[in-house]
């Protein structure tokens, strides 16, 4: 087993037994289900809307070269500098050099999972820059030096009491009782930071090729402030974020809000196509868009799973996943948690190290049903399993199946097994879970059903004997 896999099983085991954690997640998600269903019911046809959204992303991803070039040209036409980064270090080096050239000291960041993926804040801090996260949930986990728990709700695993402790310790704030008071503490801290920062960093939810814009979706207003107040702005955009037309957003923006948070529309949806233009009185003087590959092209090359690049990072698949709900976001050990994380992480970071995520699934398909862009998530989990085994077969599988086949071909032996199980069954109960229990991996978390008094063959024979 890979070290990632050992860590995963350890953390998953611990959190599955943490009832407090489970109650917290169920309460949070319970509210989400109600809002999401209310909102979905307002659609003329949610299923057809999903098909339309999937079609827009299919067109973009399957003509990615064309739309990226169009996006880049249109952005540059308004004075935006576009940088194409093959991997994380290239992106981080470029952003650090932009900061150096502009004499930047303080950076205000609005939530970007792509930045998280390449450990951008850490790289910039190493370069001697102050990086402050402005999204409330991200700010809280940054203070606690934790990774985000969920791609949309980063601090979902924390109670107000824990957040209050963190604020008192790290910000020296007074005790606060309510989410309202805690939010206002963060608001006041951040107000100064926006005005003092020399550079803003954002992610993007979409990038529109037709008009040359990135589109940022957020509720708090932190992205709007981070992208308009500092003199330099850098937006980091995964190459799969591109959509062909502006009108595609007419469907994708409401669907992202509904699938992601049960909202009609997220509070701020902002299109950014360039730095301050002639006639504008505010906005950044410099605007850099970093288009990041970081092995997305490897996923693109897998035609079978290419639709995983349709993902709009709404988090809907996490919210319905029975695995996520039990093991929580941190157990995954990945930037992207839940079903989509289990599907794409092996492509982004290596199949053999991350295959365990695809095996840790009930394959119930709730994720694929929830996905607003119709990614075949649970099929991709199966394909990852198949690919992992084809690449590196497990040595014990062949002999086990050969032995099983040998056994099944011998009816006399097979008939002997049933009475043995009836004798052995009660004995198994006695040694259950102990070292010499041969099925302890099963009985550790489940009941072993008692052996039936009669096998089917015996039942059939007895029935015929009566007639």
């Amino acid at each position, binding site marked *: 087993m890979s070290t990632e896999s050992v860590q995963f099983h350890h953390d998953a085991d611990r959190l599955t037994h943490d009832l407090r954690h489970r109650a917290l997640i169920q309460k949070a998600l319970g*509210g989400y289900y109600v809002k999401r269903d209310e909102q979905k019911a307002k659609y003329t046809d949610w299923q057809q809307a999903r098909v339309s959204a999937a079609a827009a992303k299919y067109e973009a991803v399957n003509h990615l070269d064309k739309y990226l070039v169009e996006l880049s040209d249109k952005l540059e036409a308004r004075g935006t500098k576009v940088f194409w980064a093959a991997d994380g270090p290239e992106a981080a080096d470029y952003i650090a050099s932009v900061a150096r050239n502009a004499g930047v000291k303080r950076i205000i960041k609005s939530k970007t999972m792509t930045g998280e993926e390449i450990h951008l804040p850490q790289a910039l801090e190493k370069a001697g820059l102050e990086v402050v996260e402005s999204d409330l949930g991200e700010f809280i986990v940054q203070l606690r030096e934790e990774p985000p728990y969920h791609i949309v709700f980063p601090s979902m695993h924390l109670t107000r009491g824990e957040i209050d402790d963190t604020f008192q310790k790290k910000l020296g704030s007074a005790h606060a009782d309510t989410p309202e008071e805690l939010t206002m503490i963060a608001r006041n801290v951040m107000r100064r930071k926006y005005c003092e920062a020399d550079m803003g960093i954002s992610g993007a939810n979409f990038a529109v090729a037709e008009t040359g814009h990135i589109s940022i979706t957020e509720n708090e207003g932190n992205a709007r402030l981070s992208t308009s107040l500092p003199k330099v702005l850098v937006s980091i955009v995964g190459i799969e974020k591109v959509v062909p037309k502006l009108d595609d957003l007419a469907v994708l923006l409401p669907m992202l809000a509904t699938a992601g948070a049960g909202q009609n529309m997220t509070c701020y949806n902002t299109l950014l196509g360039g730095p301050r233009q002639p006639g504008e009185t505010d906005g950044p003087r410099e605007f850099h868009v970093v288009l990041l590959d970081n092995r997305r092209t490897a996923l693109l090359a897998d035609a079978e799973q290419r639709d995983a690049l349709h993902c709009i990072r709404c988090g809907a698949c996490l919210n319905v996943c029975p695995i996520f709900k039990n093991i929580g976001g941190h157990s995954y050990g990945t930037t992207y948690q839940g079903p989509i994380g289990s599907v794409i992480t092996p492509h982004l970071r290596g199949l053999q190290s991350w295959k365990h995520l695809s095996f840790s699934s009930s394959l119930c398909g709730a994720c694929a049903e929830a996905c607003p862009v119709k990614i075949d998530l649970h099929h991709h989990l199966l394909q990852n399993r198949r690919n992992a085994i084809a690449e590196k077969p497990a040595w014990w599988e062949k002999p086990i199946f050969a032995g099983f086949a040998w056994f099944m071909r011998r009816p006399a032996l097979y008939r002997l097994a049933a009475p043995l199980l009836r004798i052995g069954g009660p004995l198994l109960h006695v040694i259950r879970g102990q070292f010499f229990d041969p099925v302890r991996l099963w009985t550790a978390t489940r009941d072993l059903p008692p052996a039936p008094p009669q096998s089917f063959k015996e039942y059939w024979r007895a029935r015929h004997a009566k007639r």
Partner: protein
Amino acid sequence: MPNDSREKILRRIREALSVKAPARHLPGAASSGHQPQDWLPPVPSSTDELVALFEKNSLDLKTEVRRCADAAAVASELDALAKENHWQSVGSHRFSLGNEAVSALGLPVVFTDQPYETDSLERCDAGISGCDCLVAQTGGILVTSASAGGRVLSVLPPHHVVIASAGQLVGDLADAFAVLRKHYGATPAFASFITGPSRTGDIERILVLGAHGPKKLTVLLVQA
């Protein structure tokens, strides 16, 4: 500056796309003749119904909508807002629906359509702006630098007041994009849909208004 990997990435993409992906889940015959936005929540066509839908969505979003019969009513509503909320100073810009009402307040005004200090705008109690259009389907307000006094006025002060006319209502986002094309030809460098006052649910998923942007959002809707 490090070198960019444009050609390398484009080459990898073209190699990857040489194998075609299975076209699952694409629109079938059932959706021919439909626009994708036809599947979203339905929108009415008459202005009165659009206004009613916008008001209903605004209520859910906690946006306050005040109807005003004419320009004089706008001035008195704005004055009432100023008194209710004890405004000391406001940020604004020059726009036809707002000019008179803003100057009638008699308060210090930071104009953001001319060079201004961020700190002085930050100290304002309200930002008063126009918009490009109002979106009935979502309860959204579309702003650009030209229509709303820059990129910052509509998000920095704690109370954002939008003055708009009922004629500015459109059905859905696609209609709003058409308004942008009509107003500016090409889509401008900055545009934002504002759908309710700033909010967060990051602490125990409990809604709190005014996370970083305005805690209050008021639309003064001129009927004429």
